[in-house]
């Protein structure tokens, strides 16, 4: 860990963290502000949803969500929060090391008296700090939105905490998987398409698994591992899948360190 790299990385990332956080806070408050209307006309809502094609309901998990209850509605909101978080964390993961190489600053950084382990650790910690800040904003705006719009309804606090807490573990997955992919491909020139691809790809894999049954691949996506409907229905995580998630994250991190230590930094061509 090298304090100056950490400080610099965090400084560079701050603007992006603020934008993502603001967007997420807005999303949560906006969605929850519609909740009283939904809850008030639950019967009408159910009737309308029943007319949607079954595949579509499955894709958005609408069959398993009860939008008339606070947590049901919140979990629907949280699915979109997850999608944003996935894209944010993937972007950070893909960019962590590849931006230096694309902008040819890797030569600058790695000719300094720091080891690659120090470089990678400092950058990772800075990115994780950014993600933690984002999660804090999500926590605060969730509690704020719920207290503003819940009306007289009660909800299970523990389940809400489980949902919120899943955010950071969920993001660490995308951060480390994005990073290991960026080290496996020859050169990442632009981070955004990769980040969007990984985030959306993982979401679609989970969404389509609702439509097409019996796919094992879906177990690999964090959208399944932290399936909001499962958490709300059971008031608990699907532990084997959570361990799978953590396992993939750890393997991706370890592989990233190994690959980075053995990497030939591409020269100006």
């Amino acid at each position: 860990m090298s304090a100056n790299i950490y400080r610099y990385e965090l400084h560079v990332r701050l603007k992006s963290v603020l934008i993502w956080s603001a967007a997420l806070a807005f999303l949560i408050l906006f969605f929850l502000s519609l909740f009283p209307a939904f809850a008030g006309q639950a019967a009408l809502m159910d009737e309308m949803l029943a007319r949607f094609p079954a595949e579509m309901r499955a894709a958005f998990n609408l069959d398993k969500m009860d939008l008339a209850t606070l947590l049901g509605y919140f979990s629907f909101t949280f699915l979109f929060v997850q999608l944003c978080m996935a894209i944010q964390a993937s972007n950070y993961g893909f960019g962590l090391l590849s931006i230096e190489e694309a902008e040819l600053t890797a030569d600058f950084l790695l000719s300094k008296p720091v080891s690659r382990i120090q470089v990678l650790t400092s950058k990772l910690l800075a990115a994780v700090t950014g993600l933690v800040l984002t999660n804090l904003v999500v926590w605060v705006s969730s509690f704020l939105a719920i207290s503003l719009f819940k009306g007289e309804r009660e909800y299970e606090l523990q389940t809400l905490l489980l949902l919120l807490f899943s955010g950071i573990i969920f993001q660490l997955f995308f951060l480390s998987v994005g990073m290991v992919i960026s080290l496996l491909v020859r050169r990442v020139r632009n981070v955004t398409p990769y980040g969007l691809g990984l985030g959306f790809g993982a979401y679609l894999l989970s969404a389509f698994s609702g439509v097409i049954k019996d796919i094992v691949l879906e177990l690999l996506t964090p959208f399944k591992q932290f399936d909001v409907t499962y958490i709300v229905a059971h008031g608990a995580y699907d532990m084997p899948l959570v361990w799978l998630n953590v396992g993939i994250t750890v393997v991706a991190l370890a592989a990233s360190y190994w690959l980075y230590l053995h990497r030939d930094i591409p020269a100006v061509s």
Partner: protein
Amino acid sequence: MSIIEVSQLTKYYGKARGIVDVSFGVEKGEIFGFIGPNGAGKSTTIRLLLSLIHPTGGKATIFGKDVTTHGPEIRRDIGYLPSEVYYYEGMRVIDLLKYSASFYPGDHTQRMHALAETMELELNRRINDLSYGNKKKVGIVQGLLHSPSVLFLDEPTAGLDPLMQRKFFNLIREENARGVTVFFSSHILSEVQRLCNRVGIIREGRIVEISDIRTLQQNNYKKVRVSTDSTAPVVFDMPGVTHVQAENGTVHFFFKGDINTVLQRLSALRVTDVSIEEPTLEEIFMHYYE
């Protein structure tokens, strides 16, 4: 013991050749020129020494320490000026220099300002707005501000105007006078000739010659030019004569051997003008390229 010791260093990028079996040593306090055409392996060698890339075979030591295992320790005392300088988006010159200085123990503010003044570098400009030559200056200040004892310069003068080049050379000479060892890679031979004590010539990934710059010039060829007003073509067909060119009564050729034999031949002629000079490194160099 040499400050930089390279033995049988080899690097392949997959199947593509980087360098093969490169061996040389650089002594403390010398300016070592590393010359060769583009793609010969100059940057590959420097990047190996900085452990930006990893060798396929052989080894290299700086200060007696292996570059692959003691990288961070070695780099504390190394300054590096890459051939192409790009720096962090949106940073001002001063921010980058401070960031760079923060990697080295001690306070380098004074030296940073002194260097920036010498190189006429404006500290408050954004790096993105700078011209290529000015970015190069940022690279120079950044490479020197922590007073390293070994300097790696990879084609350092590209983009600098002649006046700045001279200032830069003076700066390097000053550093060298303080005992700094300089590893200077270039394909422009005249600048190597101006600055270096010894040169290594690299071609297609292999070292073809390492020698003192003076021996390279002296023990090699003389460039002879003879003008006569006689109409008969002047004939110099003697051992040691090469590259004969004749035009308008003037003959140019290269000669290697005892110069007295040429003088004897000349004394028999009626000449209007004679010059015998040392060839430029460029001309010697062509010899290695053929």
